[in-house]
């Protein structure tokens, strides 16, 4: 890999070297490295457009890294990655996509991830998106995430897109069986004339299923965001969705949290708040010696933590 690719890899996956454990690195549509371990098997799909990751039942404290790097202008790809997470396992999956586009053509990566989380399994999924490059070509990322959770499984998903992606449409769907628990933490910042759409559809199908979908976002400059999260309670269950946004400059945000109760014991809550940075927060940090711009940066960094 060249230095640009290495730097992007660092941005999206905090990787400086080859990671510990299992990994698959995809660079400009090609495999740039792959390793399976005794418990985690990574195999390419026969069509060459993605991978299958199989994690053996009972695998504990192991990780999988699957970063993607695009540094060629004009490259468009759709990748299908499937994760089979065995029963009683406890693993971390780190994904992420970085685009460096200094050309005039659009670069686009659409990653479709499907998670099959076995009974009592626990998975933590971290996904970071990043774009850079001063070309006129756009940097487009459209991730699709499908999560199928069996009884008493737990999935924690952290999805972060802080800068450089011109347009993103993210669709996340989840089906939860009895006792399953899904925690989603989304962090999003848009600037320039970027647009970001994030849709969630979570079905709580079994007794005791629990979902907590929390999005925090900042829309600066002339950017536009839409957050649309629907939780359906089809059994005695708990669901909570929250969208909390800071709006700046000429940014625009549409928040559409929605709830659907199809069972009398479904307990569902949604919260949404949009507002600019409170003047008193800026004042407080300025009395500690920060300039207004530094204060703003601290407030946003904290908010998107």
């Amino acid at each position, binding site marked *: 890999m060249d230095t640009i690719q290495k730097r992007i890899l660092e941005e999206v996956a905090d990787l400086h070297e080859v990671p510990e454990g299992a990994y698959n690195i995809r660079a400009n549509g090609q495999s740039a490295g792959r390793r399976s371990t005794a418990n985690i098997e990574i195999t390419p799909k026969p069509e060459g457009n993605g991978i299958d990751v199989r994690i053996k039942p009972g695998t504990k404290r192991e990780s999988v890294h699957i970063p993607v790097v695009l540094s060629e202008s004009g490259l468009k790809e759709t990748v299908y990655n499937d994760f089979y997470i065995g029963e009683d396992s406890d693993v971390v999956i780190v994904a992420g996509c970085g685009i460096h586009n200094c050309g005039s053509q659009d670069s686009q990566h659409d990653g479709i991830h499907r998670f099959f989380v076995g009974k009592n399994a626990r998975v933590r999924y971290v996904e970071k998106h990043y774009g850079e490059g001063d070309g006129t070509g756009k940097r487009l990322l459209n991730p699709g995430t499908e999560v199928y959770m069996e009884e008493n499984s737990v999935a924690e998903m952290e999805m972060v897109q802080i800068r450089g992606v011109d347009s993103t449409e993210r669709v996340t769907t989840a089906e939860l069986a009895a006792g399953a628990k899904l925690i989603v933490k989304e962090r999003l910042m848009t600037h320039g004339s970027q647009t970001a759409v994030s849709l969630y559809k979570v079905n709580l199908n079994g007794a005791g299923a629990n979902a907590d979908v929390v999005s*925090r976002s900042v829309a600066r400059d002339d950017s536009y965001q839409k957050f649309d999260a629907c939780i359906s309670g089809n059994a005695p269950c708990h669901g909570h969705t929250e969208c*909390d946004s800071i709006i700046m400059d000429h940014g625009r945000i549409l928040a559409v949290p929605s709830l659907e109760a199809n069972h009398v014991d479904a307990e569902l809550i949604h919260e949404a708040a949009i507002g600019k940075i*409170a003047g*008193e*927060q800026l*004042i*407080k*940090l*300025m*009395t*500690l*010696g*920060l*300039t*207004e711009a530094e204060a703003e940066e*601290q*407030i946003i*960094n*904290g*908010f*998107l*933590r």
Partner: protein
Amino acid sequence: MLELRNIRFDVDDDAGHVDILKDVSFSIAKNRFVVITGPNGGGKSTIAKIIAGVRMPSGGQILFNGQDITALNITERARLGISYALQQPVRFKGIQVIDLLRIASGKDLTPAACCDYLARVGLCARDYINREINASLSGGELKRIEIATVLARGSLLSVFDEPEAGIDLWSFQSLIRVFEDMRATIKDSSILVISHQERILEIADEIIVVADGRIREMGPRKEILPHLIGTPEAVTSCEKIQERG
């Protein structure tokens, strides 16, 4: 150290023209503990805000160590050595106690150093250092963290607007210890406190009584305090609790 000359502050709002400060002049020398008291709505908090630069005066002049700071903004005054603890502490989302203490001190404080500041306001660092400064903290906790940030700054002039408000009476004595400690450790520093509390007035070197946008009287504690005892300008805390504390 600090001098206010003929400070005026007026606003035009729905109610028409309001003179909040009419003509306020006073000075604070170094190594002084000064308390401003007076009836609610008399302009005390506005004076604190004008010193910190949160409000710009409509007229008059402010000098700090001989320098005219009237036109300086909040940041510039903070960097010169003025600290300000707000009456209503601000809540943040995501910013933790350790972050605020680091910003305040301007240093990458270790957790142990943060612990020292928090202990002085009666908070155990282990429980608080990584807490977010959000609605999960009580008014009293926020107030103490606010005071800890001023401690971490170690400024020449520290202005506290009703530091005792919302703090339970148990910690009253600790609050007074905090002031004494600051005076002992920061060379030549002065403290300005806005308060009605008799126990805070009792440790003042000087007292300024502000009413109706003007200074009604000011001078050494011995002269002023006897006029205030038994009035709303010098309220006592509950005696039963005081005895226990």
